[in-house]
């Protein structure tokens, strides 16, 4: 097992490497925010044309706050950045350069994607969330903030483990991009990324709240905004933790098989 110095060295060089692509990252960051904010305008139009002040008890301001926070959350949970180089690694044998180092492949992938996630969180998620809390006249309690932070960590781990599972399938599939896009689209649709779950029928909403989908957007979002009671959020932390463990076990079992089937061509 590698020591702390090895992890620090890997993080440092990956961070420096990421800075070489700062323009690319800045553009990616900006357009991720903008694409999420499109829903603010879509829902503003829905409220405007419905003529109602509230829909299902939710005001337009409440919905705007929901989608602005969602824009911040999706910077971290919208796309598993861990997957970006995995297909190439698996198919063209690039994985060999990771496996000759005394460190787990998964850890190296995480250390490669972590700098980008940190930048997205620091310059995307954080200003948006702080801005909504500071200027949105919202009363965010310390417990809601703590639960939100815990749920974000869960969502981050979950999306990356799922990304790793999809990326590992590159050994068996011609391309994993179709699967990756389908899964992230499903997360968005069933996780409150397009329609907040409180607009769905109760039984469907309750069911979706138990699935991994809701952890990517709806649960952390409504926890921060105080829509979800602290007790329900705490329950979600526990359910989310179980999902993370389940996905980690799945990923570990799959990886055991995948690493036996890697071709690692070329040379």
């Amino acid at each position, binding site marked *: *097992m*590698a*020591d702390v*110095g*090895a992890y*620090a*060295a*890997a993080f*440092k*060089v990956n961070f*420096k*490497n990421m800075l*070489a*692509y700062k323009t690319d990252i800045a553009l990616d960051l900006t357009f991720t925010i903008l694409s999420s904010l499109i829903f603010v305008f879509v829902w503003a139009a829905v409220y405007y044309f419905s003529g109602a002040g509230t829909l299902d008890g939710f005001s337009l301001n409440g919905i705007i706050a929901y989608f602005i926070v969602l824009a911040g959350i999706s910077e971290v949970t919208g796309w598993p950045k861990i997957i970006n180089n995995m297909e190439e690694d698996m198919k063209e*044998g*690039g*994985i*060999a*350069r990771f*496996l*000759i*180092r*005394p*460190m*787990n492949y998964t850890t190296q992938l995480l250390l490669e994607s972590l700098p980008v996630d940190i930048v997205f969180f620091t310059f995307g998620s954080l200003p948006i969330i702080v801005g909504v809390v500071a200027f949105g006249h919202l009363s965010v309690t310390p417990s809601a903030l703590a639960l939100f932070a815990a749920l974000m960590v869960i969502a981050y781990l979950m999306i990356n483990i799922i990304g790793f599972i999809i990326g590992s399938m590159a050994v068996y599939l011609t391309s994993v991009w179709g699967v990756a896009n389908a899964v992230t689209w499903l997360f968005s649709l069933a996780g409150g990324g397009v329609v907040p779950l409180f607009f769905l029928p109760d039984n469907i909403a309750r069911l979706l709240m138990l699935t991994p989908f809701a952890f990517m957007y709806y649960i952390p979002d409504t926890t921060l905004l105080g829509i979800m009671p602290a007790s329900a959020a705490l329950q979600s932390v526990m359910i989310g933790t179980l999902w993370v463990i389940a996905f980690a076990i799945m990923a570990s079992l799959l990886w055991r098989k995948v*690493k*036996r*089937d*890697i*071709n*690692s061509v*070329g*040379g």
Partner: protein
Amino acid sequence: MNNAIIVDGVVKKFKTYESYSGAAGALFGRKKKIKTALDGVSFKVKRGEILAMLGRNGSGKSTLIKMLAGVLRADGGAMTVLGLDPFKDRIRLAQQIGVVFGSTHPQLFWDLPPIDTFNYIKGMYGISESAFERKLERFIDMLSLKDVYKRQTRQLSLGERMKCEFVCSNLHSPKLVLMDEPTVGVDLPSRMAIGDAVIELRKEQKTTFVITTHVVDDIANVDRIVMLDHGKLVFDGSQEEMRSMFKKSVMVELYFSDKRRIGRYAKYGKVVVSRDDYVKLEMGPEEIKRRWFTQMLNDDAVVDYRINEPSLGFMLNQMYKKIDRDGVKDGAENG
């Protein structure tokens, strides 16, 4: 434990897929094939030995290097590298070995200068600051990298990059270095610098090297050669042993003032090259003792001549021809 590597009857098979012909065929499926990349390969490498692994493209060399590095798992047989199972003990083994994957899977970060990758390796292997400084200085000197290692990798020539890749794989003083075609496309000075560094490191640290290559110059200083073809080991021995297989012939190069006279002597040997006033003949060593040979050398039309043993490259080519003649069973089979 005298052996750095023990490979015993190792088998590796890959699944490959073949599309049916035509667009409709491609739409409805593909045919699975099993390709045997390595078929019962066995050999040993002593500690401190420099071994060249030769073979045509697709012969299984790179697959074997990846298996020795723990990247790929063997489907049959057994192998130990520095006393460890390379696949099961990959991380422990990685602490003790260095690997150069040529230009195919570089370790260097493309957008950063090599010094950043060197520093990363320093942290990865826990090399102390003083040891790192000392080793880096040594490599900079050995491989003439003074004006190279602080420039962005993408701006370096292939030769400069490969020298830096070599440093990446040796900074932590590994006991064994696996090099997979480290000199493909690399200029002569860089190739020679890497070759000299291999010799130096073996001398200083008793490092074991396994080098796969197609470049004949790379094997000039190796202790032993193993040759693979269609996944099978077809030769295991020293250069001398390989030479002895083909010593039955000598190469005679003749330069003529009158090219019309070439035909008179060409019949005495096998013409390897013939152009204008020059002919290269392969013939049995007994031929040069014959009378016609002395007459030929005294012929006014022969302005210059050279008599050599076959070059290493020629011998290797003969070896490949011999393999083709004797026939190594193709490893591809339907599955």
